[in-house]
């Protein structure tokens, strides 16, 4: 029989794992699966979890109160999802105990950005823009402009997200920057095609995780999370598109 303290720790571990998974863009079926597996390993009986994109409610038998976890922001950091997956697997294989798992989860949750993260991300976004621009349009002449545009706009995006923490505003601002830089380069005669450069430079901002998760949640029958993620993807796309429309109006 579990002590009351240990049962509470088990619920707390489950809720922390669920929060990390949902915050960083896991699909709901994996969240539920991980939570049930952890609760089973920890010895909780009749475990119930109600998970949505903005909050989790957890309960087990012999516990008068359910546990609630609020989820405020979403960051899309898949390394944390992988880390939680690893911890859950080690726990169900009996390699680590419950308090160790809780400590490791707290450590995963506290992980901040690595050294030179913004620089590496901006470079990756720049290369991504250039490569996809050539793939989509076959335009080699302007690929350097796509490189510069993609890098600068992603740097702006990560700066706005980090400083002001408003969802969708980062995409809007960086799309404005993309449009402005592209129109400037074409007006100065350095580059040739506005369309090709913008198509490439917008690609690092596309809502890949919400789109994939919307599809997978809808398929698995989760009628709360699937449409919500779909709306998140649509809102992101609309904020990119409206910024581009604003710039093109003055082009």
């Amino acid at each position, binding site marked *: 029989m579990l002590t009351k303290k240990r049962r509470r720790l088990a619920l707390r571990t489950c809720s922390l794992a669920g929060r990390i998974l949902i915050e960083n863009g896991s699909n709901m079926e994996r969240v539920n699966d991980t939570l049930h597996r952890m609760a089973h390993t920890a010895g909780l009986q009749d475990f119930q979890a109600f998970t949505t994109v903005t909050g989790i409610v957890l309960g087990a038998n012999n516990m008068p109160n359910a546990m609630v976890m609020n989820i405020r922001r979403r960051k899309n950091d*898949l390394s944390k*999802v*992988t880390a939680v*997956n690893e911890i859950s697997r080690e726990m169900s294989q009996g390699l680590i105990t419950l308090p160790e798992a809780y400590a490791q989860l707290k450590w995963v949750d506290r992980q901040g950005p690595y050294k030179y993260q913004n620089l590496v991300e901006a470079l990756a976004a720049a290369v991504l823009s250039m490569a996809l621009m050539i*793939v989509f349009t076959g335009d080699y002449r302007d690929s350097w402009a796509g490189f510069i545009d993609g890098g600068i706009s992603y740097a702006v995006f990560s700066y706005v997200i980090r400083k002001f923490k408003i969802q969708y505003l980062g995409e809007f601002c960086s799309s404005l920057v993309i449009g402005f830089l592209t129109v400037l380069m074409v007006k100065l005669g350095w580059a040739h095609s506005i369309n090709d450069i913008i198509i490439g430079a917008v690609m690092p901002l596309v809502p*890949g995780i919400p789109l*994939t998760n919307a599809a997978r949640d809808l*398929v*698995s029958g989760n009628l709360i999370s699937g449409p919500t993620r779909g709306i998140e993807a649509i809102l992101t796309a609309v904020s990119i598109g409206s910024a581009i429309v604003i710039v093109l109006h003055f082009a």
Partner: protein
Amino acid sequence: MHYWLNLALQFFLSYISTVCFGILLHIPSRAYNVAGVIGGGSWVIYWVMYYQDGVGLAFSNLFAAILIALCSRWAAQHKKMPAIVFEVPALVPFVPGGQAYKMVRNFAIGNYYLVTVYFYQVVVIVGAITLGFGLGELLNRIIHYRRWKIVKKNR
């Protein structure tokens, strides 16, 4: 000769873009190569189907999405990582960014006929990818049906 060179270039570029999107999403570094191969390979198959063989837009996207789902599940089991680590970066070349941009552009110009044309294309591509992921999930469950039953029973 020119055809094969172009094919290799397409593979290389989509491999690079998949790995770069993986860096943006912070996938673990030991997943870069596999994710890149999945993204590049499925893009090459899509490219051959859509641009060379003239299979329709919807069907080639559907096939590519099914391929991504199956390969990601396989890689997830081998590398012991969640399948989403491979799926999301590999999907990047298939996101209808170009069509969505052309839709917005024609909307800004006021060319409403072309807006509907590109909107239709975006809806077809997104729908095909969604359906493809669903079908891939179904195929995964069919392949791993026996294993699933054992997991459920032990729980």
